[in-house]
């Protein structure tokens, strides 16, 4: 099926609808248009956007939305880009790079580049994306009910009827399946054995969750005792009044990373680079970490033990993460979805 024309036409259709409701763009000498997740925008405005506007004497136009919407807009305006820089997951960024929507980031102009953890410096190759935050994914569990020492424990009889698993459509889904596969002795990145295992225990799994906020409520209501979850959501669980633990499975922890990207031919590269550099600076990365918004990719960031407890923090933690390569996710996610729907969601 052809897709690009479909999306372009749909975007044109959506634009027609949006036309009447579009706010008037405000003119400025310099404007930087960024495309970001909707998450924690009040904090980002206070910590990143407003201070940068004062430094650069420019206006920042912030566009938010989910990855699909934002990528579709970048693609629809490929010939005359309206977005200068964007933040995406590594696999979405790789997808955009394959469609020639991105250009390499000139890291020689990033004064804070050398301060980044090695894992964040060039996760896509050719400097097409620069990691600015990452998160660990492990298992949260009720320590008064069970002990979790392995990803395989998710399918144990002790947790039957008391466990939730991330849906394959979420960012946590494939990494959790990957680690379950590792615990089962799978080689490489083949998730089929893990999907089969989940399907075999379908009646024991309470739900396949799509949002960590939903998961926190299920834990609070004692519907579940354990679930794989991203570290960014740990704060929702640790203070819920129940005995909660963050598992350190013997197979290790997995996770994900987000990257900054530069759209191709946007004509605003210098300002976008200045903004990226500002965001990656030790001060800003520290402020974002202390506000519990993002775990730092800048290795110079130092935070208190209390703050670190809520983040994916420290060189050792970062180095130990077993991440699924972005190209593997990108190339396989549709087949994973088909297999998941066929076997698990019978």
């Amino acid at each position, binding site marked *: *099926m*052809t*897709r690009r024309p*479909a*999306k372009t*036409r*749909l975007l*044109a*259709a*959506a634009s*027609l*609808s949006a036309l*009447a409701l579009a706010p008037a763009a405000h003119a400025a000498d310099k404007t930087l248009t960024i495309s970001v997740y909707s998450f924690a925008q009040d904090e980002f405005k206070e910590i990143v956007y407003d201070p940068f506007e004062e430094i650069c004497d420019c206006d920042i136009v912030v566009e938010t939305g*989910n*990855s*699909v919407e934002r*990528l579709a807009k970048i693609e629809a305006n490929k010939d005359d880009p309206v977005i200068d820089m964007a933040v995406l997951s590594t696999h979405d960024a790789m997808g955009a790079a394959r469609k020639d929507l991105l250009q390499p980031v000139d890291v020689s102009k990033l004064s804070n580049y050398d301060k980044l953890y090695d894992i964040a410096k060039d996760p896509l190759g050719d400097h097409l994306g620069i990691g600015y935050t990452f998160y660990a994914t492990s298992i949260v569990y009720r320590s008064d009910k069970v002990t979790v020492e392995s990803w395989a424990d998710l399918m144990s009889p002790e947790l039957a*009827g008391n466990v939730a698993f991330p*849906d*394959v*459509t979420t960012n946590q889904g494939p990494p959790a399946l990957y680690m379950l596969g590792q615990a089962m002795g799978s080689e490489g990145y083949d998730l089929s054995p893990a999907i089969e295992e989940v399907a075999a225990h*379908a009646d024991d799994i*309470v*739900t*396949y*969750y*799509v949002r960590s906020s*939903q998961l926190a*409520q299920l834990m609070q*209501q*004692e*519907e579940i005792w354990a679930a794989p979850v991203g570290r960014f959501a740990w704060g929702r669980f640790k203070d819920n009044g129940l005995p909660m633990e963050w598992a350190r499975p013997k197979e290790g922890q997995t996770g994900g990373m987000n990257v900054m990207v530069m759209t191709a031919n946007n004509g605003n590269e210098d300002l976008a680079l200045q903004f990226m550099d500002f965001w990656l600076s030790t001060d800003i990365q520290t402020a974002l970490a202390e506000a519990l918004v993002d775990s730092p990719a800048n290795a110079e960031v130092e935070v208190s033990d209390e703050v670190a407890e809520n983040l994916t923090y420290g060189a050792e933690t970062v180095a130990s993460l077993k991440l699924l390569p972005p190209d593997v996710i990108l190339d396989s*996610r*549709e087949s994973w*979805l088909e297999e998941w*729907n*066929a076997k698990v*969601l*019978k």
Partner: protein
Amino acid sequence: MFEDKRTGLALALPAAVFAAALFLLPVGILLSEGFRNADGWSLAPYVEFFASGRNRVVFLRTLKLAALVAGVSAVIGYATAFAIVSLPPASRGRVFALVTLPLMISPVARTYAWLVILGRTGFVNQVLVGSGLLDTPLRLLFTETAVFIGLLQLFLPLMIISLVSAMENMPRDAVPAARVLGANWFQVFARVILPLTREGLVIGGTLVFTGSMTAYITPAILGGAKVLMLETLLYQRVTVANDFASASVIAMILMVMAFSANLLLKRLATARRAR
């Protein structure tokens, strides 16, 4: 009403232009994507969709739940509407306000309330276990039953409102007259109330069926991925597979189902009238 048709047309023009430009055209473009493949115009996307066993299960589940919610809400709706119109005018207003009150609360909040009520430590299980009827709590969440209850609570007011409006237009002595002539309550309903309120049933049935079929939040929260419905599947195709063509197919199927339900209800109403 107007002195000439042109005045009426001129007044309707802004709304017509607005609907055409900002609704019909985008929706037309969206739906046309479902009739394309690599070779151009084709019905292949629909054939591919229904070739999948899982898609057929999702389609039938959506149809079944929407029909069940519409049917049960019609039964409850008739009883409630009849009770409301039988009240004195002062009380009628108060009770009617109570019926419409849930519509003023966000569907998300209403659905989350069910998440608590139907939970293992929720009200329903507390009653069942506390009364000794059950030893262990029932697993109610993330089942078709939970989705059905959530959708019924969400859309029942629409059915009641439609039927109350229809019953208020009935001649006030129609039911007593039928009773005097010896009709039992079933005959009163089948031969008097139903024919006189069929328009309300068509409107209410269409609203409830279509709403249940296209609801996203309630099936997503109370059913989750274990109770996949067409709307949930559509979301999945767009957000994960980035597959707008399949999403267009699902959107078209949902639209056809909605129109078919409306036509079927109208046909039933007309058939009763013709008899």
